């Protein structure tokens, strides 16, 4: 009998303890919707998180979950996936967890390309420890730990991921449940490490940090929602687009200066070269809209598949059939 699960079937009995208005709620709802739509069994899903507000996520899912230690979720998830490749494994992490204390694991898990998903909640602040700047906080921001403004340049998660060899990178705002849901579905369907950066609002310590990107008034002009095979068009009146001018991107208006839709770039998420994907990731306000949706989605060898193949090959070629044969191989001698 086909068992159809609804989003609410994925809700655990635990009370959700995030602050009222936190962007995490929308992510939670989108993930439940995505899993229901994917028809994955609850017992075949594992959410593995590090430390931080968003890392409480696994408690709220009626799946398997592991709330681990700061920065290490990706490393723990790696073991879980290798032990049981049939599981749908989701790494839940924040900008501090994944890119500061867990920065080393982040670049390596991206590079290795296991078939897992990672949701990176980027609110550009440390929430759980009450408001220190994070590796994604914009230069100059005044926070609890930078009363005179930060004097360090932030990571752009997508740029770091693509530089580490990411094969699937998407970015979504926490205000667009529909886009988040679809992107999580795409992430799960991609065979490889799928990284989804959520621009998430921390209502207490960094409220409205993404406001200029996500507010109702500005979102159409300030977001470019990418779709594979579609021209890069955005704007309230859908009349703006992205064109390649020499080696740079530029924003153009359709119908002005002889620009037509045919002049615009068409999004190719599947092209192997990360050059254009990186340029899209780097687009920022006010000069450009911020790129959303699946920016990169390419096929590459998958670590867990290759490990399984190596083991199968070793079993096939082995001169030993049992451990007893191994123990008794080579130079042995009898003591009487």
């Amino acid at each position, binding site marked *: 009998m086909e068992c159809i699960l609804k989003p609410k079937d994925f809700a*655990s009995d*635990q009370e959700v303890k995030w602050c009222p208005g936190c962007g995490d709620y929308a992510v939670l709802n989108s993930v439940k919707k995505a899993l229901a739509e994917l028809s994955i*069994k*609850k*017992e*075949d*899903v*594992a959410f*593995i998180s590090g430390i931080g507000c968003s890392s409480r996520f*696994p*408690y709220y*899912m*009626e*799946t*398997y*979950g*592991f*709330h*681990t*230690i700061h920065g*290490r979720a990706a*490393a*723990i*998830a*790696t*073991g*879980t*996936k*290798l*032990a*049981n490749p*049939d*599981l749908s494994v989701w790494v839940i992490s924040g900008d501090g967890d994944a890119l500061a204390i867990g920065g*080393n*694991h982040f670049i*390596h898990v991206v590079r290795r390309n296991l078939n897992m998903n990672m949701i990176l909640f980027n609110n550009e602040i440390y929430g759980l420890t009450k408001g220190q700047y994070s590796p994604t906080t914009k230069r100059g921001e005044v926070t609890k730990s930078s009363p005179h403004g930060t004097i360090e340049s932030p990571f752009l998660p997508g740029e770091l991921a693509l530089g580490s060899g990411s094969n699937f990178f998407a970015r979504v705002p926490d205000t667009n449940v529909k886009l988040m849901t679809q992107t999580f579905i795409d992430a799960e369907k991609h065979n490889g490490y799928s990284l989804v950066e959520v621009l998430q609002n921390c209502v207490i310590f960094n409220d409205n940090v993404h406001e200029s990107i996500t507010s109702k008034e500005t979102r159409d002009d300030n977001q470019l929602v990418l779709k594979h095979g579609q021209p890069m068009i955005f704007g309230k009146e859908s009349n703006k687009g992205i064109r390649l001018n020499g080696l740079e991107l530029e924003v153009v208006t359709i119908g002005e200066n002889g620009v037509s839709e045919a002049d615009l770039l068409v999004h190719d998420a599947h092209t192997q070269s990360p050059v254009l994907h990186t340029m899209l990731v780097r687009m920022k306000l006010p000069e450009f809209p911020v790129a959303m949706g699946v920016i990169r989605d390419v096929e590459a060898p998958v670590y867990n598949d290759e*490990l399984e193949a*190596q*083991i199968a090959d*070793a*079993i096939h*070629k*082995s001169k*030993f059939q*049992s*451990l*007893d044969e*191994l*123990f*008794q191989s*080579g*130079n*042995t*001698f*009898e*003591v*009487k």
Partner: protein
Amino acid sequence: MQLAGSLFTDTTANMGNQIATFPDFPSEIRAPQGTVAGVSGFQIHFGTTGVHSPGDAPDVLIAMNPAALKANLSNLKSACTIIIDSDSFSKKGFDKAGFEENPLEGDLLSDYKVIEAPITSLTKENIADLGLDNKSMVRCKNMFALGMVFWLFNEPLDQTVLFFENKFAKVPLIAEANIRTIKCGHNFAETIEALTSSFTVLPAKKQPGLYRNITGNQAAAWGFLAAAKKANKELFLGTYPITPATDIFHELTKHKWTGVKIFQAEDEIAGICSAIGASFAGDVAITTTSGPGMALKTEAIGLATMAELPLVIVNVQRGGPSTGLPTKTEQSDLNQALYGRNGECPLIVLGASTPGDCFKWAFEATRLAIEHMTPVILLSESYLGNGAEPWKIVQMDELPEIKSVTSSNDDSDWEPYKRDSEKLVRQWVPPGTEGKQHRIGGLEKKDGEGSVSHDPMNHAKMVQLRKDKVAKVADFIPLQKFKGKDATKLLVVGWGGPFGILFGAVNELQKEGKDIAFTHFNYINPLPLNTAEIFEKFETILVCELNDGQFANYLRTQFPKFKFEQYNKLQGLPFRVDELKEKFNTLLEAKMQNI
């Protein structure tokens, strides 16, 4: 080669060693080079005591070409270290020596510890700027090998340097070439952290049966393979390379045919974390490391303790602190194993005591981890890991089944942290199990239910439960034994790697009729239930260990009523029988005088 041999002989003799040498060179001065007949060799046997002959089979063979390897192959014992000049192992070279295929490939040398070094090319490169002709440069290469041997045996270079300065006083260029080469070889060995097997196998009566030689690291790897098989589960190793533990990892990579999954992580933390993730998903999970790596794994060990997941952490100890002495042996990570975590964080600690029994203790560590749902730290030592001894081959059907605590489908009142009354363990329910979805983590758990709890009384209860769970392991391990008569004057106490030498020293004194007994611990936490009963029987208890008294201090906290004397050594070297006997005799005589 004859010169290299005699220079090493002079230095070792000067260092107070007994020496026997056996120069073995072709009768024809110009026998064809590269052929077996043309091999020039020099055998030296050295040690502090008991050197009566050049030694039947060497611990280290330096083979400057394939012919030298061929000539000595039949005379090697297993786990012997072979230093090879890889530059000479061309097809031409091994054809000339009569090898059918490259001996460095295939299984021919699988029982030995082979150190391949491009000796000729490094020698030439190192002295290229001196302007010597090619022949003179190549002639220095034996000194490179000698430098490596000086490193392996902790011998100083000074005397050899002085020798060259004097001998070639009139040709300083040659002196410099040789001195630079010997230093280069010494540095090279240090850089690659070259290790030799220095385990002393004491003559003892062996049980009849089929034997093979095995190193401690190989035995540990095999023990884990056996344990996973007996648990009817897949083995997962998450690890990061570190001297002197890496050979467990190397050995397991040879056996992917068993289904073992091996993950070389980006760091020590990811090594253990991946193992914890694999354990969560139902694999028999292990991680291997040495002291500095242990330090990095600390937080994750706490997570495994809190999550109550089975996990084996192997620490092949080396000299510390910090980077310390990567290639030398020590037992100074005991405190780290017992106490080195935040919070009240008890776990099982075991210590292996011979290369061969690393198999047994790897198996036992895995059994206890799975059956008691807890991390287990297995302490090995450089001396064991790289040492070799004859090992009585275990038959798989002699080993017990390992039974994990899993739930049945009709277990309607199942909860993630519900415990059985006998062992206080929770059930191991990996993802994929229908209807038992649950969440675990590092936050304090509510007793039974397993949800997050900050309740004060619940925390107190959980701390006690985790402590009791580990303490209860004592009900499932054998009682402690001792060797000697009841109510003797002196009890020698050891743990871990010094077993063989302590046993040997006590044995010799017992044969002399001395009033001495010996007990050796492998179960460190919890200790066997009858430990105090044994201590009761003796007037003096002497704890011998290669650290500053960590086990002695641990025993003091466990058994405050006894007085523990200490004998410690911190030189990166194993104990010697003579120094132990001297200490034992001093204590025995002091006791006599008191009477």
